[in-house]
């Protein structure tokens, strides 16, 4: 039998179950999370909360102990992040550094970079932003115009990046730049530079989104100097590194748990009403999807742990997961008679509002639906 996509399921162990309980205890001690932060909580930036997690050893937890990581498995990390996301905890500050920048440095970075950056990330003191999209390069990432020119001892960066979450708070951005002229192979000549966001020549302009938040930004580079020791990986080999990064970025439980608390709260309310087979049906359909998504995402976590880079599988999880997230408020509307209220202090009315207003971004960030499906098609040998 041909098997081009691998989703071998995994069973969790006692070790992971114990850890799950520890996270729940931690969250119970932490107290109530404000209603405004619950939906899409991985875009909510709270550096204090990140430092509390760091004290528990829950940032960089899969990284080797030589870089002060906790040397835990990807499945253990999965348990921690899924518990935090399901509760709506504000994990946005360290999210990118923990999820993809750290793993990128572990895989492609120099020893010096690992020694310098990873312990700071683990302590919850160093946050990273993603520097990929540009005003004229969204889905067509290889068309980026930001350049890095060779100078003595380093590179000079000019151009701009956009849709960069929390650039105003983050310390560094792994920035994809063109370092060689465009050739027949348009994926060649790109490099990833670790840009210190406090460098001279950087302007950060927040962009308000339709949900009223200001977490993403446009960043302008005007002759920004980046020293040689801040080149991440190989010069001109940035494309394959970015693709590897995306396996980490696309497969996690944040791709289907952004609106999870809405489901939990809705069930609480529905349980107070008369039993209804229509309610059972809708809830059952949603839970069935959620169960499968968890199994698929766990499977990808297990493959990451084995050192594989399941890029195609990650695209599958993200496309199915964000479809679920977007469907969730729509499906709940058919069985619950509560109108969305943006200003509500708490409850389903508030979460409906947040999850609907934020939902368009779910299938855009980290690669649009069409791009993901294109990647899957390529993996199947159709392109």
């Amino acid at each position, binding site marked *: *039998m*041909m098997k081009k*996509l691998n*989703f*071998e*399921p*995994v*069973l*969790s162990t006692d070790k992971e*179950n114990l850890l*799950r309980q520890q996270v729940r205890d931690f969250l119970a001690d932490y107290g109530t999370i404000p209603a405004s932060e619950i939906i899409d909580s991985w875009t909510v930036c709270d550096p204090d909360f990140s430092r509390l997690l760091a004290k528990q050893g829950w940032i960089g937890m899969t990284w080797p102990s030589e870089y002060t990581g906790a040397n835990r498995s990807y499945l253990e990390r999965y348990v921690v992040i*899924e518990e935090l996301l*399901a509760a709506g905890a504000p994990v946005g500050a360290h999210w990118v550094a923990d999820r993809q920048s750290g793993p990128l440095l572990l895989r492609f970075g120099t020893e010096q970079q690992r020694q310098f950056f990873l312990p700071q990330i683990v302590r919850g003191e160093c946050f990273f932003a993603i520097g990929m999209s540009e005003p004229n390069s969204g889905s067509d990432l290889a068309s980026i115009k930001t350049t890095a020119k060779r100078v003595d001892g380093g590179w000079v960066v000019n151009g701009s990046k956009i849709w960069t979450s929390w650039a105003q708070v983050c310390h560094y951005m792994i920035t994809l730049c063109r370092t060689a002229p465009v050739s027949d192979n348009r994926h060649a000549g790109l490099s990833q530079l670790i840009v210190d966001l406090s460098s001279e020549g950087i302007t950060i302009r927040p962009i308000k989104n339709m949900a009223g938040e200001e977490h993403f930004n446009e960043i302008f580079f005007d002759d920004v100097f980046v020293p040689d020791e801040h080149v991440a990986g190989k010069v001109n080999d940035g494309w394959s590194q970015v693709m590897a990064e995306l396996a980490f970025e696309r497969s996690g439980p944040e791709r289907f748990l952004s609106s*999870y608390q809405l*489901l*939990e709260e809705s*069930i*609480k309310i*529905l*349980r107070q009403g008369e*039993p209804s*087979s229509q*309610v*059972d*049906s*809708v*809830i*059952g*359909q949603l*839970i*069935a999807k*959620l*169960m*499968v*998504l*968890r*199994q*698929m995402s*766990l*499977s990808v976590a297990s493959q990451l742990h084995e050192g594989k880079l399941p890029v195609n*599988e990650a695209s*599958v999880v993200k*496309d*199915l997961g964000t479809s679920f997230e977007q469907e969730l408020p729509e499906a709940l509307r058919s069985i619950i008679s509560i109108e969305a209220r943006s200003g509500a202090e708490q409850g389903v009315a508030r979460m409906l509002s947040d999850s609907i207003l934020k939902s368009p971004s779910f299938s855009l960030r980290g690669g649009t639906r*069409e791009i*993901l*499906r*294109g990647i*899957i*098609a390529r993996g*199947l*040998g*159709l*392109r």
Partner: protein
Amino acid sequence: MKDLTRLIEESAAKLFESLGQSDNIELMESGTFPLACWEAFKEDGWLQTMLSEDQGGAGLGLAGGCVLMRLAGYYSVPLPVVESLLGIYLLAESGELPNDNLYVPALLNTADEKTIYIQGVPWARHADGVVVVFAGEEGCQLQLVKRTDYQLFEGSNMAGEPRDDISFDSALLMNARSIVSLSIKTVESWLALARAAQMSGALQSVFERTVEYANERSQFGRQIGKFQAVQQQIAVQAELTSAAMCATDAAMLHIETEQEWECIVGAKIAAGEAAGVSAKTAHAVHAAIGFTHEYPLQLSTRRLWSWRDEYGHEAYWAKQLGAYFMQSGTTNLWSNLTQQTA
């Protein structure tokens, strides 16, 4: 699990591929039992796959059986692989000594009437007996009703597989055996899992054919798989096929855990959802040739359309699953869900 799967697939693939040849399937659809195929299947000992070694079996249990059923689904094997394995397994659970007859399972909702009717019993016309399972005071009750003791009204599903209605005298159930340790709910879920396993094989076959065809067929001077509109559809098919296969594998992995039932239900729903989309996309990509009797795509798609309804369709199981979680007291959904992999 991985080793078990490889072992079973490697040993059975060749035989199953030959059993799934279209002349065998034609024979079955014309109403004749493919006896030579059945003998070959039995000769290799596959009927005893799920039985314990004490019972003269291979000791591979329900999970091992599911691997074989998936393979049968992949090759559209025109035999009661699912039904014969489950029939003999249930009989053995009740303490009856197994033999190599064809026994097929059937669930009964109520045993109160004088004459019992059961609709859509798979392969009943060819079986030596029907293993009738119904609820008992504790656990379930099981009675083997022999072929000579039931009346038969022939029917078939969309794939031409026998799905017969039977009737018999309820007095036959008077001395049914009790299986205290096994609830009717569990038996029902095992049947659903078996069908889901068979479906995941058929889904994989349809998916492979579709990718292969999209890479072969040319229009407008290039392979149709090079068109984005086609790629996007096949990608969705790949996603749902993957979800169904992962859910079924996960259910097999969770057999005999506390989460067995939920995982099985999730698997049957995922397989059912994938079946519709997969068949639709596969036929769209294959266009007219896929609509012909001669082209083998229909062997799998007709089976998928039938199997997604059998042993509970998506809507049935979604309602069951929803009711289960809605009624689990004050426990929040998340603690319930995360036990799933405990």
